[in-house]
């Protein structure tokens, strides 16, 4: 219910903000304003995901380093990519995004394909434990641009085509042909220090098997809530 209120509030705000002159110079990653062909936006950042207490038995804000890139292919199309890693778990996905804008409002629709890989080997604890998954991530992005900043919301889901874990030569399949995650990401992007841009936001997700917890071999058959706070700076 909080998520619905969240989204409705955002839409009401977007509809009610007074018009001021637009600024077409700023280019942001999350906001799906069409990029000029050949233009590239790259940013690096950090995220902290609060893992579900039923899995990790404590409040653990798990960090991950993130790299995002968006490259303008044509007036309406861009190519996006995301790399997120905390050494033990790595997520890499990308794909084309269709972008359009009406005045200050922009909409983007994209379909990412990618994969997850995890590996750990510690003597006496984890002997060559690994896991992988191949996923598809459809996304809808809605953005609104003001002079001082841009606000955007992204709705996404991850569909697991195949996944498997391996323990010292033993193998077991993981979730397959199923939706594993649902995300709603709110991002605020603004010029920051001198000429750099800053992205700040929160991602709310529901996951059946959070990829960050793969080495806990979760067996709970329930979608669990994971909030994530992130920030990133454009390169």
């Amino acid at each position: 219910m909080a998520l619905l209120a969240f989204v409705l509030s955002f839409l009401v705000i977007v509809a009610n903000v007074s018009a001021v002159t637009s600024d077409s110079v700023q280019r942001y990653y999350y906001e799906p304003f069409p990029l000029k062909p050949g233009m590239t936006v790259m940013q690096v950042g950090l995220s902290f995901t609060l893992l579900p207490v039923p899995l990790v038995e404590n409040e653990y804000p798990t960090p991950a380093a993130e790299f995002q890139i968006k490259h303008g292919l044509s007036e309406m199309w861009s190519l996006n990519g995301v790399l997120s890693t905390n050494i033990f778990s790595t997520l890499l996905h990308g794909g084309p995004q269709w972008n359009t804008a009406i005045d200050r409002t922009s909409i983007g629709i994209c379909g990412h394909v990618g994969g997850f890989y995890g590996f750990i080997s510690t003597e006496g604890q984890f002997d060559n434990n690994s896991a992988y998954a191949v996923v598809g991530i459809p996304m809808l992005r809605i953005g609104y641009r003001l002079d001082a900043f841009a606000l955007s919301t992204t709705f996404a889901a991850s569909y697991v085509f195949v996944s498997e874990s391996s323990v010292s030569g033993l193998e077991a399949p993981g979730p397959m042909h199923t939706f594993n995650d649902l995300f709603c990401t709110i991002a605020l992007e603004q010029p920051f220090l001198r000429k750099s841009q800053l992205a700040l936001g929160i991602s709310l997700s529901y996951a059946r098997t959070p990829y960050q917890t793969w080495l806990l071999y979760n067996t709970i058959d329930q979608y669990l809530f994971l909030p994530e706070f992130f920030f990133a700076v454009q390169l």
Partner: protein
Amino acid sequence: MNRALLTIVAMLAITPAMAQDTTDLVYSIEASASVSPIVSMFQEPRYPGATDELSYGYGGFVQVQWRPGRLVAFGIMTGWAFLAHDELPSNPTIDDEGPVTASATLTAIPLQVFVSMRSEHFKAGLGMGPYLMMSQLESDDVSKGSRFELGLTFVSSYVFPISSTLKIGPELRVLYLDYRGILSIMPSVVLTSTLYEY
């Protein structure tokens, strides 16, 4: 608990605010200090057999923030909040002076990153990070426990300048410890000072 929180959020929303573009690029370091009474709501009984969900206390908080001339300001926040105190009969311990009571206190020290936005007089912000929760149990002996737990601190204030660098005004602060099931409301007075500008 979440309904109470949303009600408070709506109350924060009623405070007037004007959207202004921050086109000036003056950087500044700002500090704020506030003191307040505290009303706390506990989702679970504070001890076995406790029936009262509310407790009363007091606290003070300090924030230092860097405003880079744009919308968002960053800083750190700390302080001290006395959240709860209870006395229990320490049955069957009785010393020469009669029955001994056991007392327990709960305090919280925020050590948080603070992000805020300001437009003219109105400021709203969010503190994220750990609280150091501390308890002290006293009867014929003293036991002390402490633990870091994550919390959110919502702050909304409306200040008036009283000098070129000082501002004062009312502030509403809400502490939310979801894991422990504590919601604390702190109506306070805040004093803000611009320490340095460049």
